[in-house]
């Protein structure tokens, strides 16, 4: 087989891991900026937001996540290690039966995904999950 470097990288997603690792500090501040933009600089508390995500992504290009925050008017998702951290913002009107959203996101490498919820009283809550994107291949 002609298993060239490019193919290995693309299929193994290892190249992405390297990139993300090297550049994480820069992205982290981009994420902080994006969160501050969403919250208007308000303090963000913990609790009240449930973020469900795989520990290890089966495919970094399409990672299923779910977020739930009862009483939220909006939930924003940030991928800390992506070149553009903001992923999506879900808004919930007063008639929404539940404040829940499920989607699939693309991750450039192993990183934290952060969900920030804006609550009815104007406060902000967050939850995060570390999702690993790995080369795989050696299970027992």
């Amino acid at each position, binding site marked *: *087989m*002609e*298993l*060239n*470097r490019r*193919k*290995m*990288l693309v*299929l*193994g997603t*290892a*190249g992405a*891991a*390297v990139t993300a*690792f090297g550049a994480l500090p820069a992205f982290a501040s981009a994420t902080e900026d994006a969160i501050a933009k969403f919250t208007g600089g308000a303090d963000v508390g913990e609790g009240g937001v449930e973020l*469900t995500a*795989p*520990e*290890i*992504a*089966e*495919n970094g290009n399409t990672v*299923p996540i779910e977020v739930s925050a009862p009483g939220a008017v909006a939930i924003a998702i940030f991928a800390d290690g992506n070149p553009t951290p903001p992923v999506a913002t879900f808004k919930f009107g007063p008639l929404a039966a539940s404040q829940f959203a*499920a989607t699939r996101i693309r991750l450039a490498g*192993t990183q934290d995904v952060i969900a920030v919820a804006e609550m009815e009283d104007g406060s902000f809550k967050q939850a995060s999950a570390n999702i*690993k994107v*790995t*080369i*795989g*291949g*050696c*299970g*027992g």
Partner: protein
Amino acid sequence: MISRRDFLQVGMAASALVGASGFGNWARLAAQQSLTQDQLLQFDTFGNVSLIHVTDIHAQLKPIYFREPSVNIGVGENKGEVPHVTGADFRRLYGIEDGSPSHYALSSGDFTSLAREYGRVGGLDRVATVINAIRADRPDAILLDGGDTWHGSYTCYHTQGQDMVNVMNALKPDAMTFHWEFTLGSDRVTELVESLPFAALGQNIFDAEWDEPTDLFPPYTMFERGGTKIAVIGQAFPYMPIANPGWMFPEYAFGIRDENMQEIVDQVRSEGAECVVVLSHNGFDVDKKMATIVSGIDVILSGHTHDALPEPVVSGETLIIASGSNGKFVSRVDLDIRDGRMMGYRHKLIPIFSDVIEPDAEMTALIDEQRAPYENELSEVIGQTESLLYRRGNFNGSWDDLICDALLSERDAEIALSPGVRWGPSLIPGQDITREDIWNVTSMTYGEAYRTEMTGEFLKVVLEDVADNIFNPDPYYQQGGDMVRTGGLGYTIDVSAPQGERISNMTLLKSGEPIDPAHNYVVAGWASVNEGTEGPQIWDVVESHIRTLGTVTAQPNDSVEVTGI
């Protein structure tokens, strides 16, 4: 008011009083060097429910030798905890005498001489005898297969798992879960699962497109035994599409999914289950963590990491049972289930000493029938070994050293990579190496031995990535294999360092030069998870190498230096 938690602790305490484990009953036989089937099977039937657990058989129908690891490092909270205790330390922990049958069955050290003394282990005809004996005590005992059953031999490969299905069906299991089975490809898995006369379980086997449960793999099944209801929930290997080629079963998604596990536990409790058993292929440390997160599980029958423990480990309020691999052990767990809860247990890990346990004649005939069409190919002698050939260990084993040497010489490469799988029996010095023996350590549906070029930088990425799959301090991020084996490449690994910083001193062994990140190296390997990998099958590469050698002599391997333990 007394909570359920309090009740359980009372229950556990009571169980300790009635004798929790069968271990020790046969360990003392060392002095007389005699062991009988009755002694191995001795068990005072207890309570009202019996579970029988087999797991990770890897298609080993016949008795084999199997050396347990001498290097099995635990990290994070599992540092120094079982199953990460080996050799003499393991024997001291459990009070096992050196040279005893339990030394041979459960721990490494002095393997070759003990193997000559105590003989082979396993064989599904012996396993059948043990299961029949337990059923004679308790006719409605529940037999559970933890998976990795339809993979790992010449006949299993050539029959696409049919040999194992035929033999296991004769043992009449009540339920099963899965891992390597999926590497037969989803069409074949569907075909075989639809043919099974028992439940194929997996609460974490989901449809990949819709991320919903599947019809083929229900989450649980309910049993009524001894006047009580027992729910058995399946947990397949969570990281199948990552550790194995996901393109072979693209319809399925997995993951640990402990929130769904909690929902299922709550559901079966509400349906009247007084006892909840999880038949798991998570791996031991993952099971231990899951038991602290998901409440309401009484027993986890743990598979995947191939650990054999003579006593249950209690995590939170849950018993975790580790039943070894390759047909070497059968676990029996008797439970006293009363008034909606587990009041006590008795457990025994039964080692299958093949020269002690009488084979079941019908099962022997059935096994031989599966093998008959292939007998000539299986038994052909390819070479001899004058060294112990084994696989288990975090960093290397003499079988993998031989496989890496085969890749280097047969594929004319500078560096060889061999996957850190944990299956594959051992051979003792003086044995012939047959074709069957080679297939037992290499057989898989993606065995093509590739030859490619990798930069030094990329090789480091590979090593770092695999190292994190083993040594991430959070078990939920571990995949349950061992470190990728390297030939022609030495390195230092700090197992306690964070991801990306564990590997250093990478050295090209033939020149002694440090690995240059920018240089391209010729690398041969096998078991790539990438679709379209081309090359000769690894078993042909190894066979050709052994034919050339004639007699295999293993050299000491000190190419990996381990720190941070």
